[in-house]
């Protein structure tokens, strides 16, 4: 990996921030971890620590209902032994790996652009349509979403890392690595298995010489065996299959806690006997859009990358326990779609203004509800709903822009703001 001076200075300053700030403010992660925006039961560092405690005292962490982290992660952090510096280092490292993979993806997109214009016989406008690497680095490292999720020590950071590795490996034809890291991501937080569909389609696209069904069998086989390997290892570590309740919690939405998403309010209001039905409906809803995305944007590899990105955004919007760290993965990839910016109906500047205003409002409304007691859950949910709407509009705007591009690159003059 080669860095120029700008990239290097950004990476080093980001690492310094990530290592120094948590050491100077050792309570920072506790404060952030206490906020529902950063911590869901399935990814909070606090509950991970609980798991470490139970494991160290010879108790099965999964016999209760507090720990929802996969056993390998808990064991890894048990080895670290709550050493602050090493913990910070691990998170910084995970972030760095994610960033490096993001840069590789960016380079791949640039290369694609050059190839595409070569094919069309146009003169090469290198890198005009994409952002320079250092901008992508800066966008990733200094984005408040990313920084705060590192500071909150959300375990989604690791899921994000593995998904990013999947994307990068797909770009560079390291197909088995892609599938394997997707299975690790799935092991860590269940939802990433949804992306197997676009990933398999991508593999089919990139190996036109092989028969599609053969690829499907191979890829899914590799994915499933990787996943089972990890699950079996977890079984060996904990001595029982009880840790599978983690995934049950995510699927069945056992822990109804307020968060950024749309599920919790619905399930606090609904009658108990409808519960199972709607859990099914919501899960189906979260998954089902992956299929049309993959089918519609399945022509080229770049399209499939778009389908994957849109799927990530949609799952963030529709899943049970979304947090800021999930958003961070989606938004750090936005820059890869610079060619689509010109057809957006709502300028990204405005979308981001709205996003950040709403992100500032969410904790305020939570505070009014929980601390002051002058508001109630409706306040927080209402603002969360607006936030989700903004995210959904942001996403669908990109889909619109993509369709415009396919239609012939029609440029609308609406985009002047």
């Amino acid at each position, binding site marked *: 990996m080669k860095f120029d001076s700008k990239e290097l200075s950004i990476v080093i300053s980001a690492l310094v921030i990530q290592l120094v700030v948590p050491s100077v403010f050792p309570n920072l992660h506790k404060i952030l971890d206490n906020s529902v925006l950063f911590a869901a039961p399935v990814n909070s560092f606090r509950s991970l620590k609980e798991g470490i405690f139970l494991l160290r005292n010879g108790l099965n962490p999964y016999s209760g209902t507090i720990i929802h982290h996969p056993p390998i992660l808990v064991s890894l952090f048990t080895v670290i032994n709550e050493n602050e510096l090493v913990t910070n280092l691990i998170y910084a490292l995970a972030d760095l790996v994610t960033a490096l993979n993001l840069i590789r993806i960016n380079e791949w997109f640039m290369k694609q652009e050059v190839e595409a214009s070569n094919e069309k016989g146009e003169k090469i406008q290198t890198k005009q349509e994409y952002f320079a690497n*250092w901008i992508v680095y800066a966008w990733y490292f200094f984005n408040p979403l990313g920084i705060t999720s590192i500071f909150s020590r959300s375990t989604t950071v690791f899921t994000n890392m593995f998904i990013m590795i999947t994307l990068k490996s797909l770009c560079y034809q390291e197909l088995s690595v892609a599938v394997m890291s997707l299975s690790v991501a799935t092991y860590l937080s269940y939802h990433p298995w949804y992306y197997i569909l676009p990933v398999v389609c991508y593999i089919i696209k990139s190996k036109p010489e092989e028969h599609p069904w053969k690829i499907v069998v191979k890829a899914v086989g590799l994915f499933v065996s990787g996943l089972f390997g990890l699950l079996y290892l977890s079984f060996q570590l904990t001595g029982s299959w009880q840790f599978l309740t983690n995934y049950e919690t995510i699927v069945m939405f056992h822990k109804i806690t307020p968060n950024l998403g749309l599920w919790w309010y619905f399930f606090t209001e609904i009658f108990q006997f409808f519960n199972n039905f709607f859990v099914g409906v919501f899960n189906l809803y979260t998954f089902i859009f992956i299929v049309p995305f993959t089918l519609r944007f399945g022509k080229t590899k770049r399209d499939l990358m778009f389908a994957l990105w849109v799927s990530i955004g949609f799952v963030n919007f529709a899943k049970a326990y979304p947090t800021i760290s999930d958003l961070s993965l989606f938004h750090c990839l936005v820059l890869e779609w610079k060619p689509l910016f010109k057809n957006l109906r709502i300028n990204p*500047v405005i979308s981001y203004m709205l996003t950040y*205003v709403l992100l*500032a409002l969410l904790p305020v409304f939570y505070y009014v509800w929980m601390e*002051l*007691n002058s508001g109630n859950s409706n306040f927080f949910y209402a603002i969360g709903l607006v936030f989700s709407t903004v995210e959904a509009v942001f996403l669908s705007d990109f889909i619109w822009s993509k369709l415009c591009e396919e239609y012939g690159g029609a440029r609308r003059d609406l985009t*002047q*703001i």
Partner: protein
Amino acid sequence: MPLLERVSRAIDQHGLIPKLVRQLPRFTMLLAILGVSWLFVLPLHGQYRITYISENALMPSQAYSFFRESEWNIVRGYREEVVRAFEEQDMTGKNELMTTWLDNIGYKVATHEINSNESVVYGIFHAPRGDDTEAMVLVAPWFTFDGEQNAGGVALTIALARYFYRMSIWSKNIIVVFPKNGQLSLRSWVEAYHTSLDKTAGSIESAVVLEYPSDADHLDYIELNYAGVNGQLPNLDLVNCAVFISEHEGFKVSLQQTPKGQLWARDYGSRLTVLLKSIFELSMTGLLKGGGNGCEAFSGWNIQAISLRAKKGADSHDITTFGRVVEAIFRSVNNLLEKFHQSFFFYLMLAPRNFVSIGTYLPSAVLISVGYALASLSAILTNNNRNNDLSQTLRLRSPNIDPIPLCVGFAIFFLIFTISTIFGVSMMYVAERYPYDNDNVDGYRKLTFTVIFSGVFFSFYASLAPSLSLSKETDDHKKFKAQVVRTLNALALFFLTVVLIGLLVVHFALSFTIGVCALPLAFISYGPQSSQSRAKLINSALLLISCPWSTILAAGVLSSVGFDLDMVRNIAQNFHLGTAREIVSALHFPSSLDYAEWQYLLDGPTEIFVGLISAYKHFQSWTWLAICYGWFTTWLCLWAISISDVTYGEEITELEAKPAK
């Protein structure tokens, strides 16, 4: 959807958006005017609502009150003793006296030691019928808000305590508290009650602070205060209860210190006055006179607190009537089965029986905040650059900012943010280190006026600033500078938008006040320093008006001359030269140029400033933080913009560049 599509196409065809972009500053102005005038609409007939009791269990004044003639002599007896205690005893003696009395009645008495020379006596009466988990608090500070001896209040409270003890109806514990004052002493007790005191009586549901600084038998009307710190208000049900009960007993109720003559008024002017005064009071809670009215002391612990201040007069209401008001409030709260939750927590009162709820008044501050967001957009769309020809439509498709100037702009913003953070924290440290007493008052006066005059100086520096540009700037350098300034401008205004919107729901009054006072910041432009002295002067004026310290100066001077909005209402409603002269003469303007005469005028701003920097320590009030981080940061950024020398216009170069392609 097809309709929206048609609309968007129509906008497209006529090129409306590029045309409108240049008008964005006017939209900001328009929104601000709309936002302010929204408040002026609220007191119109049909826009506000009439109060009602939402929680059925409260049933105010439904039970017969027995605090009548039989208690007369008891109140008088206690009062005589209290008056004597004021004459003869120091605080320790008074506390001892109170301890004996409460002990004799049968209360569980305890003392909270604030420090070596101050303590608070309180007594607990465990409810005969309750589960001992909830409590109601009755507070009688020894000295009132204005520093007067609260003889009537203390005597009435101890008589009520004695009377309550004989009743068997209580299902919530009763706590009576006798702090030295209703501000810091009471706050200290409330904090200790929730953290360190041994003898407690469960969670406090409601608190009533009683003040009647007189030893007279009769009283005239009741002043009701309800504003808490950080925009917190007691549930409207409690306020309503107090109003219903007081009026039921025949008292007139005054909100926001409405003078007696206005208590019968039911017109637009009086409602507007109460509304504006309540917004002002809410945004200043915890700052004035060591922290206000007694309710502030209970803020932050989910306690519904009101304070009742009886006003002396020759009217026929005797002091037991005031006692019956308290009794009925306590009996209402006693009826509650759940916490207060039915009625509004966010409201503004217009009259004792008129209010507007959050949904109705919020749009005014929302409009102002959106105005700032538009100003930020306008800044990023190059409207503030005086080098551009603003009479023409924006020619650029989207005016780009190169990444490096963008990052530099962000960096400068964070630098300025850090500077104002350091300033704010150091001021808070000063307030923590040096108490505001006779020894330090002069130092504080100097500090305040240094801050204020530095604000004035900085503002004028903006129009006098020399052209700092080094002899030869390349075009690239100029472009770079213009983009940095543009980023900083947009970012600063956006930051203020976020702060205002964040405060909106929690603390409407503060958000609104900052929004209005800082509005001139949205119109600051930048350009070459070498020419356009008129634009630079305008910048200076805008900076001066919008500086937080000028607002403090203005508010302080107004408060020290005894300005009251009711005077304006009076002049406006019955304009008559005689009245106007009379009212103006009521203001305490200094009569000569003697320094001693002017000194009290200077004390107003000093008191507000000291209140601001110490309010976080005393009441956990965020007002200073909001001003320092939000308003002052933005002000500094815009000051930096107005002194920067920008000689590059975005569009001009774009147009020139075109033929070259």
